[in-house]
């Protein structure tokens, strides 16, 4: 059964990544890592009183559990008249113990489980909140899937570990308590009975390295079969278009068969432990019967001790099993903890200064002062850029792919900090204003419109969560999105499928225009999208653009000739430098790069080599 832990695990987070993609390095870091534990304890510290309470409850509950068979001993002894305590006194003690057992057992488990849940919640939230602040460069270079794996499977591995930890401590105490009581009742009998424990430990020590590869193989076979299934379902239309059903079925059958064999082998490996444990239990009981019987016989021992021994022997294998399982959990938790703290340690490059000011009534100008910037050290993508955008003007950025257009827009919004020089918005260095106020002053429309799951309504008012229905409709009408929205099954309340798959790209673009318009920014940054937009929507988009740009300072990464010609200023970039500036007419007359671009492109600047 333990072998099956891995593949059901996908359900824990609800995502269906196939199995866990452990592509983040080796799991060699499986030792008990004090660094990870110390940092983990940092998350527990706010609740240390609760933790102390939990540990106290564990200790008490364990003591009670160990005492119960002991009272059985006295009860039996007094029943046969060999005890100084009367039966009723012993039973009163028993009643007290079972009440305590109920209460403490409940407290122990629920306090620790709640604590684990709380700490895990805090940890996940800390990661998520941290990811909101880390630099864009980090997010650019990291796949979303990897981060999700950390937020989910790693956090879950840690959760499992935390939940089991307190009860593992309880099990450890229980084992110690049982050993102590057995030895206290009778040293020789105790030692003889406990002699099976090292044997069990030895057996497990041999068994684990033998069984583990089988379990691993079973996990891998299962996720490989599931991956094949998932891929076939995702590509089912292609499968049917190409008549691949028979071939795919045959291939899938091979994988399913491998999985079957691996699962059966893993079951064999885990079931073989069952008789081993039972035989050792039997031997321990046999020892109790013979040696204990001998002692009872000579009057050395009351018969109650023998009964109590029988009770203890039945219990003391459980803690060993759970403890060795907890060891496995710990190994993966340590690796998971490492990866989680890796994320939490990503530095936050961009923070508000303590005395950061709020942008409010400044005239919306944009200025670049001798800016040099790059994403990787030593590889600048912008060289000594100086640029002045008058308030309420539209500036078109033009240039071949990789000329630095997108970097200029990203710096204006302070997604990154410049290497040299300064970017000023409203006459203030962007490093001296709060990021929040910068965000409210500037809106961005990205080339690839991104929509969130939810209604069209909520997507339009994303930047302004308290916008009214009228405002949203007005914004949609202004960018000619109202028509197609109304035709959707539930109008503005239509739920968008996965990231708006039920809309064409042009329609998605219009929604992102509406979103920007509703936010009513003083400065608009727009990355025009032209590819994949059908001609019918294209017309609407061109009209919507005009409305959107009116009355704002705009920085447009322009592809459409129409947009470029209407701009107040055209800035031509090449290899991270401004090579030309001016109006359409001026630049054409100049006969430089712009004129060449214009001549080779017709209609659109989009498809330049």
């Amino acid at each position, binding site marked *: 059964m333990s072998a099956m832990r891995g593949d059901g695990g996908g359900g824990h987070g609800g995502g269906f990544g196939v199995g866990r993609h452990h592509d983040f390095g080796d799991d060699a870091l499986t030792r008990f890592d004090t660094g990870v534990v110390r940092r983990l304890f940092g998350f527990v510290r706010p609740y240390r009183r609760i933790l102390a309470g939990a540990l106290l409850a564990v200790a008490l509950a364990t003591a009670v559990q160990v005492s119960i068979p002991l009272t059985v001993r006295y009860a039996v002894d007094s029943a046969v008249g060999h005890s100084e305590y009367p039966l009723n006194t012993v*039973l009163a003690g028993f009643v007290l113990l079972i009440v305590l057992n109920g209460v403490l057992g409940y407290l122990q488990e629920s306090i620790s489980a709640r604590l684990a849940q709380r700490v895990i919640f805090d940890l996940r939230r800390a990661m998520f909140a941290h990811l909101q602040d880390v630099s864009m460069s980090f*997010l650019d270079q990291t796949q979303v899937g990897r981060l999700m794996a950390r937020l989910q499977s790693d956090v879950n591995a840690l959760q499992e570990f935390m939940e089991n930890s307190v009860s593992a401590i309880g099990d450890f105490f229980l084992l110690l308590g049982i050993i102590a009581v057995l030895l206290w009742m009778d040293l020789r009998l105790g030692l003889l009975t406990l002699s099976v424990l090292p044997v069990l430990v030895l057996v497990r020590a041999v068994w684990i390295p033998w069984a583990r590869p089988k379990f691993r193989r079973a996990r891998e076979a299962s996720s490989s079969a599931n991956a094949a299934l998932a891929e076939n379902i995702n590509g089912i239309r292609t499968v049917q278009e190409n008549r691949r059903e028979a071939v795919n079925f045959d291939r899938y059958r091979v994988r399913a068969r491998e999985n079957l064999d691996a699962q059966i082998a893993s079951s064999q490996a885990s079931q073989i432990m069952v008789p081993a444990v039972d035989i050792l239990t039997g031997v321990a009981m046999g020892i109790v019967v013979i040696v204990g019987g001998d002692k009872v016989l000579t009057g050395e021992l009351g018969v109650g001790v023998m009964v109590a021994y029988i009770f203890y022997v039945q219990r003391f294998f459980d803690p060993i099993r759970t403890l060795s399982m907890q060891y496995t959990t710990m190994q993966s938790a340590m690796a998971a903890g490492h990866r989680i703290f890796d994320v939490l340690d990503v530095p936050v490059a961009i923070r508000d200064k303590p005395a950061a000011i709020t942008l409010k009534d400044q005239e919306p100008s944009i200025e670049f002062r001798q800016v040099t910037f790059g994403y990787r050290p030593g590889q600048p993508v912008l060289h000594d850029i100086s640029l002045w955008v008058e308030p309420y003007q539209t500036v078109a950025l033009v240039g071949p792919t990789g000329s630095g257009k997108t970097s200029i827009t990203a710096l204006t919004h302070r997604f990154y900090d410049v290497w040299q020089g300064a970017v000023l918005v409203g006459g203030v260095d962007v490093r001296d204003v709060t990021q929040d106020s910068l965000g409210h002053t500037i809106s961005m429309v990205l080339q690839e419109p991104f929509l969130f799951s939810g209604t069209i309504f909520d997507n339009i008012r*994303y930047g302004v969560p308290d916008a009214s229905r009228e405002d949203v409709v007005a914004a949609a009408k202004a960018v000619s999105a109202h028509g197609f929205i109304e035709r959707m099954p539930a109008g503005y309340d239509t739920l968008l499928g996965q990231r708006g798959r039920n809309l064409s790209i042009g329609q998605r673009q219009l929604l992102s225009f509406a979103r920007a318009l509703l936010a009513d920014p003083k400065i608009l940054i727009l990355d025009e999208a032209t590819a994949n937009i059908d001609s019918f929507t294209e017309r609407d988009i061109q009209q919507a653009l005009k409305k959107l740009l009116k009355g704002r300072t705009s920085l447009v990464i322009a592809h459409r000739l129409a947009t470029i010609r209407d701009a107040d200023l055209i800035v031509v970039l090449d290899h991270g430098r401004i090579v030309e500036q001016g109006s359409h007419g001026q630049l054409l007359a100049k006969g430089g790069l712009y004129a060449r671009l214009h001549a080779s492109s017709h209609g659109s600047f989009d498809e330049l080599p």
Partner: protein
Amino acid sequence: MSATPPQNTNLDLDISKLNLKAMPRVLGRLTRLSFRYPWQWFFALSCAIASAMFNLITPRLLGRAVDQAHHLLIDGHTHPEETRSAFLQLTPALFGEATQQAFQIIIDGHAHSTGPRAALLATALMIVVACALRGTLTGLQGYWGEVVAQRVGYDLRLAFFEKLQRLSFGFHDVNHSGDLISRGMLDLEGVRAFLESGFLRAVVLLLLVSFGAWRLLGTDMNLGLIALSFVPFVAWRATRMGLLLRLSWQRLQQLMSDLTLTMEENLQGVRVVRAFACKNLELAKFDQTAQAALRLANRRITIRMGSMSMMNFAFYTALGLVLWIGGQRVSQGAMTVGTLTEFLTFMTLLQQPIRQVGMIVNSSSRASSAGSRLFEVLDAEPSIQDVPDARDWMPGEGVLRFEAVDFAYDRSLGGRKILSGISFEVSPGKTLGIVGPPGSGKSTLAHLIPRFYDVTGGRITLDGQDIRSMTLDSLRRAVGLVQQEIFLFDVSVHDNVAYAEPWAEEQRVVEAASIAQIHEHVAGLPDGYATRVGERGVALSGGQRQRMSIARGLLAGRAIMVLDDSTAAIDTTTEQRVRSSLRTAVRNRGTIIIAHRLSSLLHADEILVLDEGMIIQRGTHADLLKQVGVYADLWALQSPPVAKTTPTKKAAKNPELEVS
């Protein structure tokens, strides 16, 4: 710490929300599936029964041992030295005596009054043997149980896979792929877990309780009743707990998948989040779901621990009563201390499986919902199948005709007509262009040709034969469909291109790739055609993916090529090259091109303009420009200002080199 007040956090757990009515039917069907392996099943069950029997013997033996020791104590008091020295002589003879006695106990049910130490030794030996047998049988039961469950799981896996492949587009349109994957993974797992342990555990439990009850009640009616009094209570609590945990688990899963979505979208849309300074909104969204999940998780802890401590308490209360009453009887001499031990040990033995009632109920309930979700797919009938006397399409001329075709998706869009009265003909070597606004039915039309859906009116023929009377296999081999979005499998470039013809020679694959203008790029990849693409392979740009798609379609279609907006992401220069090489390659096939870049359609023999599922204009490019209408408007919009003045002339002059 939450920014938003908790809303809609109704954690009311109402068991009646679980569909328990379907449970007997679904579980019965699942159990019948395991009867396909009668021998393995029989072994598992026999081992379960036998191990339960040995499990039941242990308390009896332990009780006997206690009695023997106790009686020895009483009898041996007179000659302690003698008994002691005799006991320590564990001679082979004593072992012989012990073995003999053990046999006698087994055969006659009681021992003759042989040596008391031999009796103890005999009991000890029997305990070891009983435990060893119990362990071995439990292990075997677990093994055979898993063999049956895994085999049934294997059968279901294959049946599920096979069925999904046959179910038509109509089914896949309304069933989200993520949902189907979770059925194939998680639900299958749920069913398997039940078959592996749930069912056998229930059998073992029933056996243990009934044999134990028989034994205890037979020994002492009153004490037996007290000893068993915890069973119904614990069973009831455990059942309730199992159901509540199941229900809250489903709820928790929902919350967790909402949380996943929130986090995933936040990361994918990070530029939007930052552009609109929506960090706080995102954290509030996170908190709302995560806090609800936290509350539910805590609620689950309360349910579980509350029930567990109540069950423990009930058990120990019964144990206490047995001790009290039994103890009194022992002191009165009405009962031996061994019988009391037997009672106590038996109760401990029963405690564990009774608690498992919760697990059994939980797993049955999971298996019931998982099973019904699986059977839903397995029982679904593909709406598009070969008719009984379907014939293969004989490679002939390859003339495709639409005759007054109507189409409506019956389920999803409330029966609205997507296409009405569509008629056209495409002969080999001819090209038909289709243009129209989004939602006008272009892609639907393309999907009718390989019969992904059946027409609701009129008919489609290939070489005069209705496509519904052909075998799907031959029809789909005749049609090469190139979609806007290609699905790349996690295999090599070669296998992706040759997807329709897995055994195509390298040369044909290279040829197709060359026509699609992707050969040069592929040749430059680290391993050429053996390079892995897809999820875990090298990334391809949108245009490269479309060219892969074209290459794949080229290998597939024998009579008709349908290009559904398949060049939109390819830059214009490359598109021209693709088009001209494509024209040569498909010289003897009919071609349908769906596009919104009108320049792609210039050379078409006929162009259809679709709107709301109807043909509103048709003709050649030149014809359509002469008409006042959508087409001419579009052309004006798409053409560069320079070209706008003399579009027709330019088009006529050199359509192949036209750039939009």
